């Protein structure tokens, strides 16, 4: 039979129009597309949040600088914090979880695909609502009228008395809306991990990635709910005459702190557990060894999940809780260092005796180990409450949590980008640009955040738009600001690498890293249905078993 003779009536179907494309992406319920939507959305906000940080650092480059007004500066740090936590870190991690969990557990989609789409669009519109404050609040003034109450929005600064107009309402509603999105995604992740695993994959044979995201999702449900409740209480205070946080009418400013931090501290683990998940997948592959102590890693993860619910008030050592309450939160906070330490040791043991390949993802993971070690140790310093009376709310704290969020989470995120980019796009990234990105960002990170500890030790509080000369803070702030430009250059190289590789990269093939988990057994990018036939597995590393039939994992697990 000759096929050449068949003339199709039209050829337009071969190249769908832009509107068709858009329609497909907007109405999609495919976990991979939603994952990519989350990730792209978060990258856009990463750039916005980065610009806000740069504005602040330029203002602080020298004492009594006049680059922006105090009003604008206060809005910048509020928007920077809120954006980076709620509209960069959480969506980007949800994006990776969405994309990878079904592939890793051998499923065709998440448990609730339409809930998944709902979650994404709630988060997306939450972010847009926050930024609509720039034009929607009280008219154009400075940087619009964005919220200026700080990302933890302590009462009573958020009351009608101190926050006139609607900027605080935009902040509240944005977090309320995106909070519902986060909770629905978390419910979806829990259901997917518990119910959608392929035959043979018991909980004990699940990749650590799925375990860590399972605990993360559980924490989201437990932590975001009180925040959502608190936002509703704040709205009631502002518009219906409730007095939860209205100190003039007998309300309590401290109650808001408890509500915020019972969200806020588990939130740190919500962000860092997925970072651990990336490291737990990438380090073994580039060390060419199985993860060391899988059961202990799982146990440590669950322990972190539980303990993280009991440490929140270490953010409140200076609010006058009394000696006994302070002592309790010292103990719980120090205790969480133990399972976290076990994880670091297990990653080191995974590298021990391996053959480490310094590809870009592994470089980011090694830097993560180094930086997360320091971040953990400065955390231990601040868990000693009296030391925190000095360090708390100073630039030392700012340096500490950026060490966690940038040095820990963002570095593993970059590792994840490079590691799974070939799977998501089907193209290989440029190793040269990847390494350039790594070194630029590493230098920038250390210039900024190493030296940021020092002004904190010298008594510089955070959230000040300017500072007095002659206190020994000037040079440190100059160095910190210089580092920002290296980081910005690194980010540009990173974005350039993604774009260039997407259009010009070499084909990656389905398994470029000779890896062991199920996502590498399907095509790159995977088809809509993920797997032609649902895999059946016998061990934690099904592809290792396939590649080494003489020495499979299931003999030892």
């Amino acid at each position, binding site marked *: 039979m000759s096929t050449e003779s068949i003339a199709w009536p039209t050829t337009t179907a071969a190249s769908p129009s832009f509107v068709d494309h858009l329609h497909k992406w907007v109405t999609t319920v495919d976990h991979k597309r939603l994952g990519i939507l989350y990730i792209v959305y978060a990258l856009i906000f990463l750039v916005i949040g980065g610009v806000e940080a740069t504005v602040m650092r330029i203002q602080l480059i020298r004492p009594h600088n006049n680059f922006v*007004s*105090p*009003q604008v500066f*206060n809005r910048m740090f509020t928007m920077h914090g809120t954006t980076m936590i709620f509209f960069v870190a959480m969506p980007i991690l949800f994006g990776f979880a969405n994309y990878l969990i079904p592939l890793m557990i051998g499923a065709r989609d998440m448990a609730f695909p339409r809930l998944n789409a709902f979650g994404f669009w709630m988060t997306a519109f939450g972010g847009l609502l926050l930024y609509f404050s720039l034009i929607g609040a009280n008219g154009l003034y400075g940087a619009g009228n964005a919220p200026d109450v700080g990302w933890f929005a*302590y009462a009573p600064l958020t009351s009608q008395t101190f926050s006139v107009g609607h900027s605080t309402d935009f902040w509240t509603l944005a977090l309320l809306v995106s909070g519902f999105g986060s909770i629905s995604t978390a419910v979806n992740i829990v259901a997917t991990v518990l119910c959608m695993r392929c035959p043979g994959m018991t909980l004990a044979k699940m990749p650590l990635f799925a375990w860590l995201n399972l605990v993360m999702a559980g924490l989201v449900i437990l932590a975001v709910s009180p925040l959502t409740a608190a936002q509703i209480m704040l709205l009631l205070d502002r518009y219906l005459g409730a007095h939860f946080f209205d*100190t*003039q009418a007998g309300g309590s*400013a*401290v109650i808001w702190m408890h509500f915020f931090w019972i969200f806020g501290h588990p939130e740190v683990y919500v962000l860092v557990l997925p970072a651990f998940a990336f490291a737990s997948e990438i380090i073994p592959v580039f060390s060419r*060894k*199985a993860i*060391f102590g*899988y059961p*202990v890693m799982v146990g440590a993860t669950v322990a972190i999940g539980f303990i993280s619910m009991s440490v929140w008030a270490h953010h409140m050592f*200076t609010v*006058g809780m009394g*000696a006994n309450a*302070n*002592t309790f939160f*010292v103990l719980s906070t*120090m205790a969480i*260092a*133990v399972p976290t330490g*076990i994880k*670091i*040791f297990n990653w*080191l043991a995974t*590298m*021990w*005796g*391996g*053959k*480490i*390949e*310094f590809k870009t993802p592994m470089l980011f993971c*090694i830097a993560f*180990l180094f930086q997360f070690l320091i971040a953990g*140790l400065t955390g*231990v*310093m601040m868990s*000693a409450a*009296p*030391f925190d009376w*000095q360090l*708390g*709310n*100073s630039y030392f704290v700012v340096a500490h949590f950026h060490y966690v969020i940038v040095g820990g989470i963002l570095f593993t995120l970059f590792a994840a980008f490079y590691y799974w980019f070939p799977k998501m796009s089907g193209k290989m990234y440029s190793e040269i640009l990847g390494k350039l990105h790594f070194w630029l960002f590493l230098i920038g990170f250390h210039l900024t955040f190493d*030296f940021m500890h020092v002004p904190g*030790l010298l*008594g510089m509080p955070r959230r*000040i738009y300017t*500072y007095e000369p*002659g*206190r*020994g803070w*000037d*040079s440190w702030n100059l160095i910190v600001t210089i580092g920002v430009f290296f980081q910005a250059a690194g980010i540009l190289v990173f974005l350039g690498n993604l774009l260039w590789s997407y259009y010009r990269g070499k084909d990656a093939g389905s398994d470029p890293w000779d890896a062991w988990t199920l996502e590498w057994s399907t095509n790159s990018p995977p088809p809509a249905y993920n797997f032609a036939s649902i895999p059946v597995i016998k061990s934690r590393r099904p592809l290792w078993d396939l590649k080494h039939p003489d020495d499979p*994992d299931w003999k*030892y*697990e």
Partner: protein
Amino acid sequence: MSRFLAQTIGLLFWSAAAVWASEPKGSFPDGTNIFAPASTPAKSIFGLSLFVLAVTGAIFLVVFALLLYCVVKFRKRKNDDGREPPQVYGSNQVELAWTVIPVLIVVALFMATARVIADVQKAARPDNAIEVIAIGHQFWWEYRYPAFGVVTANELHVPVSDAHHPTPTFMKLLSADTDHSFWIPRLAGKTDLIPNHPNSMWIDPHETGIYLGQCAQYCGTQHAKMLLRVYVQSQDEFARWIQEQRQQATVGNAVSQGQRIFETTACINCHTVAGTVANGRFGPDLTHLMSRDTIAAGAAKNTPENLRQWILNPAAIKPGSLMPAMQLSDPELDALTTYLETLR
């Protein structure tokens, strides 16, 4: 590789030292350095912080050395045979070791910490302690000495507390509006001032001098210029200062025009001048304005020019301050400034 690393670290260290040496120090060499304690609470914290730094430093060295060793020793070699390394899945003994040792370290750190918390927070208040009520306002500090009937602003005066005459100062911390935090790094850790939630703290400075600090909890637009000064004086000087502050304002005829302006404009809605009709409490008490070195919560030196500028246009010195621009003519400004300069 290791030599390069050593050189890099050395270079970093020396450049950091050079930066430190070149830093302009101003007239307060130890400024707000938390490692230069001059009062018992700050010294207790300093002792604990050295212990914690030593422990965390040791952990850092051990783990960093392990990481460095792994990266160097187990890197993939050029002449690699392409075979997978031996697969190790775990080891109960090793994992037990790196669970138990951290637990022991945590116990030690916790005991040391709990002791310092009790030392500072449960300290008994001696009978001769000075009592001060500090009230945080957007964006200045009010101090009231109930035992002496003295009210002042921004510059706290306390007596020195030496071994022979221990006279600690116990402070009750209140807020008139939003959250603030009282932080003089050389004297004590910070304690927040929260509306409807009274807090307390204490200091016993061992040396006379001026100690700096500032508000350490974001409290609104001008959080940055809510500066703090503590004047630690000898017992005699402190007694003299109290004596002066208890006097009512002296009023002379030469300044009557300025006083009239002060008392017939909005000034008196917010400011007090004891012994006159001015009894507002929203802004700082001005009875002894000229006894203070700074105005606008430390944002400017207390000079006639700054004072005049401050009344004319507060936003030029402290944008976002709640002091309104008074819209006075030049002669009125001059007269008012002259009047304020008599409030000694």
